[in-house]
């Protein structure tokens, strides 16, 4: 805390108003706080809308239910992708970037008026996109592959949203400069801010790719350009589409570290290693566009191999490192907190009743085991042919974006509401269960879709029974079972999502106010008894048996699943 107190002396400037957080000691400037609030609220509203659309999609794909007619199914699926994958995620990420710069560094937000303008653009873009989709003439899926054309409003809305987000990212960078110049912190930026900078750098690349491809596509929809090359579109579009998921990875890994720090007092095992792992993301994650081009004609195998592996899997190495250092830091902190018995007392006695911790740890485990392993397998040049465009693909990215990112963002929200909105969490008993209900639902969605995809079920497809098709084809009964279980999991995730939105919106509107003197916080933000007191960085005495066992299990699953898929591939028809 001392560094931040020192900052307080230098960091004040006329025209800004500040308050000190009574619980965390953080100094918070009012415009940063307001912008974090509005971005977080917008994020949650688009999560509600996109989540509802997702539930309708899953219930339509449950063959026994088939909720929506075909036309509506494709329309709602387009809206689902845009609302959750773009709007929920990026609004929340902007809130995270402002938090990781202004709040954590104890700085004022640079250029608040420009930040408000960016927010306005993003809202206009997001609302316009929903308008374009709901009009019914932009049912082109989130990816909008040409030559299928959406209305001009669809492309224009995404461009406006991307420009707004890009401006917000530059406000984040400017805030870092302000904090450095006004010396609000001492030494290097904290690890969480470092991770947020990683997310910000990747965001610039991502949003620029989006602009490069969406502007010509918009001109094409206006009739000013005659042709958009389908392959070029995919390569550049996925520079946005996949790389934007790497913003999520950087952001939610930062959140894992932040929640570990705020809830159990975890410190990074080694600053150097954790920062190097983030740096690997900056260098290599952008190559991931290739993950979507592996089954396409027209690209060479060497291009595919280098790009799909993020240059020899160096970015995967980054994630595997975080997979050790995040639970390792928590284990080390818990052992310092006195939970030293056996290999796993640190984990069994962890604050599972705190939804911030529970959500964070479930996110960590499911991102690694479900999203991570399936992602590497799916992104292997030859193995991709086994699952390209099957429902395995949405299975994989619901493991990363829903069970990983969304769950981590939800967990973070339980800390943002008391810290930024200064409201206590209503219904802590309900909040305690929320991460488990949502997490198990999200994990189920991912696994069952992956299972159905392994049996060949197509993604973005209204009728797996192919009733109206010219040539009948019958998928195995197991595939129908998987899609039914996927529907049940989606209901569970939706219940968890509704719990989250009710708790958060209720707390923001009617939670006990924490900004009056003497107001008591009943929600377990940070248990003081768990405060880690000692230094540990590179202690020779450091023992992490529980983490080593977890990582060992993970690695064994990874190798096994990887080779099982090669075995499947080797049994296919021969082609070259």
């Amino acid at each position: 805390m001392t560094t931040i107190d020192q900052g307080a002396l230098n960091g004040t400037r006329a025209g800004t108003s500040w308050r000190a957080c009574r619980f965390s000691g953080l100094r918070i400037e009012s415009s940063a706080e307001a912008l974090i609030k509005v971005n977080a609220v917008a994020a949650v509203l688009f999560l509600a809308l996109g989540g509802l659309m997702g539930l309708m999609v899953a219930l339509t794909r449950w063959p026994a239910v088939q909720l929506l007619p075909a036309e509506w199914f494709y329309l709602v699926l387009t809206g689902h992708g845009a609302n959750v994958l773009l709007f929920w995620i990026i609004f929340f990420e902007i809130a995270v970037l402002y938090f990781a710069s202004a709040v954590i560094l104890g700085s004022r937000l640079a250029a608040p008026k420009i930040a408000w303008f960016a927010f306005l653009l993003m809202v206009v873009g997001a609302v316009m996109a929903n308008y374009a989709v709901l009009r019914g003439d932009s049912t082109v899926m989130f990816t909008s592959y040409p030559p299928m054309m959406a209305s001009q409003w669809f492309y224009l809305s995404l461009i406006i949203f991307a420009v707004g987000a890009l401006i917000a990212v530059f406000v984040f960078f400017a805030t870092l400069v302000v904090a450095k110049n006004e010396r609000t912190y001492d030494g290097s930026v904290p690890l969480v801010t470092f991770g947020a900078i990683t997310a910000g750098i990747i965001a610039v690349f991502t949003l620029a790719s989006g602009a490069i491809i969406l502007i010509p596509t918009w001109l094409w929809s206006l009739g000013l350009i005659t042709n958009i090359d389908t392959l070029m579109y995919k390569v550049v579009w996925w520079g946005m589409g996949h790389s934007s998921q790497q913003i999520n990875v950087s952001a939610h890994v930062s959140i894992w570290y932040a929640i570990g720090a705020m809830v159990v007092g975890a410190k990074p095992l080694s600053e150097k290693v954790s920062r190097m792992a983030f740096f690997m993301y900056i260098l290599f994650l952008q190559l991931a566009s290739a993950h979507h081009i592996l089954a396409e004609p027209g690209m060479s195998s060497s291009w595919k191999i280098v790009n799909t592996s993020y240059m020899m899997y160096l970015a995967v190495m980054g994630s595997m490192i975080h997979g050790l250092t995040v639970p390792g830091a928590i284990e080390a902190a818990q052992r310092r907190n006195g939970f030293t018995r056996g290999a796993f007392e640190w984990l069994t006695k962890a604050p599972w009743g705190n939804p911030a911790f529970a959500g964070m740890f479930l996110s960590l485990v499911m991102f690694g085991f479900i999203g991570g392993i399936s992602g590497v397998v799916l992104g292997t040049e030859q193995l991709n042919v086994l699952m390209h465009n099957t429902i395995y693909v949405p299975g994989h990215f619901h493991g990363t974006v829903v069970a990983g990112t969304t769950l981590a963002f939800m967990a973070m929200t339980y800390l943002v509401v008391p810290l930024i909105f200064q409201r206590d969490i209503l219904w802590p008993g309900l909040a305690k269960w929320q991460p488990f209900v949502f997490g198990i639902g999200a994990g189920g969605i991912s696994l069952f879709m992956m299972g159905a995809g392994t049996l060949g079920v197509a993604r973005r497809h209204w009728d797996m029974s192919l009733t109206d098709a010219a040539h009948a084809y019958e998928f195995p009964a197991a595939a129908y079972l998987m899609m039914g279980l996927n529907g049940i999991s989606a209901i569970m995730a939706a219940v968890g999502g509704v719990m989250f939105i009710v708790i958060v919106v209720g707390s923001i509107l009617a939670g006990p106010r924490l900004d009056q003197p003497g107001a008591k916080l009943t929600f377990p933000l940070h248990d003081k008894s768990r405060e880690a007191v000692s230094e540990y960085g590179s202690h020779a005495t450091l023992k992490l048996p529980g983490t080593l066992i977890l990582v060992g299990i993970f690695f064994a699953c990874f190798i096994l699943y990887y080779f099982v898929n090669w075995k499947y591939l080797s049994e296919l028809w021969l082609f070259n």
Partner: protein
Amino acid sequence: MAIHPPSNRLWWKEPIHGIELAWIVIAFLWGLFMFFFMIAWHFIGQQNLSNETYKIKPEVYAERVEAFAAEFQAVADDGTPLEEDGVPVVRPPVGGDAYILARLWEFWPILELKKGESYRIHLSSADWQHGFSLQPTNINISVHPGYEHIITLTPTESGSFGIVCNEFCGIGHHTMTGRIRIVD
């Protein structure tokens, strides 16, 4: 803590803990293995997606497929042209070129191939992007208009196989199918 600046200002000079270092080495080596295994499969494996691709105008491709289907139309013993579900069955010569046209909303025509023989399968689209998903073998390849993709395919089992479109192609997407027959 991760939300505070590193307590040691010279954090980059701290030694790396043995556990972390070991895991970094393992992760790096595993990455190298996976990288080189993709390359190795081009030499030891028999399932590698071809990169042979030509640019072609969709209408030119459609004409070629029509000509191919007319030339190699399969006929029954009584001399009548063979059809299935109203779609002609075509028997390309063993080792020769065979064409599949993806269009709204069908894969056309039906190919009849011999098990264990190789064929040069041409894939392209007449209109939008489509997804060639051969079931239940589960081979999935994207199909673009304007790009003619040639894959040398050797079926290893006989029977009737479905092609399901797995790239969204409009309101009739879920009715888009095709068929390949493999005979002994």
